[in-house]
């Protein structure tokens, strides 16, 4: 299933060839510069992510993609530049406050809670929505139990969607790698995020698993309208899934546009082929 979306430079909504509505920019990075001591990880990068689209961030190893995702996530604070989320400049915040704003993510090296079952892990994704206080929880009967059951129902929908019913009660530490990645996606989805960040969701997967994961990502975007930003190395996946692509190399942006535009960009080709920079 390939997508042929035309890019727009203005912020009007448009409808893609396969019927999805892409809205104005939900996240904007303006002149972001990120330094770690003397090392410049990101250097003056600007791009936006539009509502309802799938935006890929690609580039050779060490380009600064994960750092970029961490800036979007609010885990790193850029020394220069601004991040605008839903039109507002984002003040420096703690990561858990950002989660409450509707941004969820998965991690490159799977950050599941190994001591808990699949069900419990995905339930943790609902924590931003669970409001009952301690006394109510201690008593359990009544409001706390009702809230638990409501959230359980939502989590079960996510479990159905990802087809992982049979491993509900299995401690995640015992699951194979591919299933763990799926559970981690489930945890992010359970939060019903406006913006979903995926850090190399296909890493370490075989062809079948990649097809499954691609299907899930497209379905999430299609059914729930979730905006998705993902880092990925597999070019085939990126070309198929993404509406637009940002290409990074050595901390700079070297390409920004639809997959076709980027594929034909000479700078991008050079970066991947390793042409020396003078």
């Amino acid at each position: 299933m390939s997508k042929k979306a035309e890019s727009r430079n203005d912020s009007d909504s448009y409808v893609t060839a396969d019927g999805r509505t892409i809205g104005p920019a939900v996240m904007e990075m303006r002149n972001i510069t990120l330094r770690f001591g003397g090392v410049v990880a990101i250097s003056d990068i600007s791009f936006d992510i539009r509502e309802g689209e799938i935006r890929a961030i690609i580039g050779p190893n060490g380009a600064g993609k994960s750092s970029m995702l961490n800036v979007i996530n609010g885990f790193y604070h850029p020394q220069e530049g601004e991040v605008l989320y839903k039109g507002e400049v984002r003040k420096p915040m703690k990561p858990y406050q950002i989660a409450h704003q509707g941004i969820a993510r998965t991690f490159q090296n799977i950050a599941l809670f190994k001591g808990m079952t699949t069900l419990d892990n995905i339930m943790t994704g609902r924590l931003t929505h669970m409001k009952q206080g301690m006394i109510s929880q201690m008593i359990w009967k009544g409001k706390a139990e009702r809230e638990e059951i409501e959230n359980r129902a939502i989590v079960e929908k996510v479990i159905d969607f990802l087809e992982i019913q049979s491993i509900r009660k299995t401690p995640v530490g015992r699951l194979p790698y591919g299933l763990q990645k799926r559970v981690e996606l489930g945890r992010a989805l359970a939060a019903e995020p406006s913006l979903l960040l995926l850090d190399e969701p296909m890493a370490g997967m075989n062809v079948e698993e990649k097809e499954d994961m691609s299907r899930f990502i497209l379905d999430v975007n299609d059914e729930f309208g979730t905006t998705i930003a993902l880092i990925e190395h597999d070019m085939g996946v990126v070309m198929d899934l993404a509406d637009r692509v940002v290409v990074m190399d050595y901390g700079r942006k070297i390409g920004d546009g639809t997959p076709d535009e980027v594929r034909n960009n000479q700078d991008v080709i050079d970066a991947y082929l390793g042409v020396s920079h003078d």
Partner: protein
Amino acid sequence: MFYREVGEFKTSYRSDQQTFPIALDRTGFLVTLAFAFVIIPLTMSEYWAQAVFLPFLIFGIAAIGLNILTGYCGQVSLGSGGFMAVGAYSCYKLMTGFPDMNIVVCILLSGGVTAFVGLLFGLPSLRIKGFYLAVATLAAQFFLVWMFNKVGWFYNYSASGQITAPEREIFGFIVTGAKAETLPVYYVCLVMLFSLAILARNLTRGAFGRKWMAIRDMDIAAEIIGVNPLMAKLTAFAVSSFYVGISGALLFALYLGAVEVGEAFSIQKSFLILFMIIIGGLGSIFGSLVGAAFMIGMPVLLKNLLVTNLGWPGDIAAHLEFMIVGLLIVVFLILEPHGLAMLWRIIKEKLRIWPFAH
């Protein structure tokens, strides 16, 4: 063959979430309750009550408390003894300062004071983690013991430095002081343990339990998915200290009657409670109780076996006790970090399919 859940389908999330989803377990639980509330109190001897049952009930509460902090939330504390002391001394000050206050209210308030103190000591937990936090709690342990020893206000400036519980009643039964009767004391402690265990179970199976476990398993990821780490840790410290404080108050007022802080609440107690949850099972309410039963019961059994039956001198029994405990700690940490509770769960799983192997 014995342990069946065939035919037991859950048709609602509520029934799936209950504490004892399998009918056989529920029956077992009710039988245990019958024992605890009826059979044991009517048949226990004074010796067994004082040596085993009362300490079990009281330390069971402390074990649950420490398990919440260490087993569920992953914050290792070696200061439980000191916090029990906070509970005991708060109880003492309340009893002596407000002679008309109901003893149960005193005990609950003591828990509250300890919860507050626990909060204070929990504040550094955001910056210091894991092993370093354990060392900080060790500092708290020594400091608290010194404070209760030295600052006269805490023991009402008595000459001996000891604190003694004045006489109090519940429903007409004397439960504290020299004339306390064992049976009412037993029931008070049992009811406290039972209710506190239920509250703990409820807390740990819901959102709070998950927040705590997320912090324990990977606190950075937990923060990124929306858990406020400081609040999660502080609530764990507060709830845990509440339990440990109540345990200390009960130990002082209802069990020992008089307490000298260096003896009753030393670091040995901190280790005792820690061993209870390691052997019983970290992250399990049931495990806390199993561990408490073991750590209280084993020395008594050993002494009865070696001293009473075989006639060996008491100090050998004490030495062997240390060796057994130390050995078990190491063995459990190597083989089954989730303690006896996990072993029990594995046995049950095997029984489910017995006589088949898998």
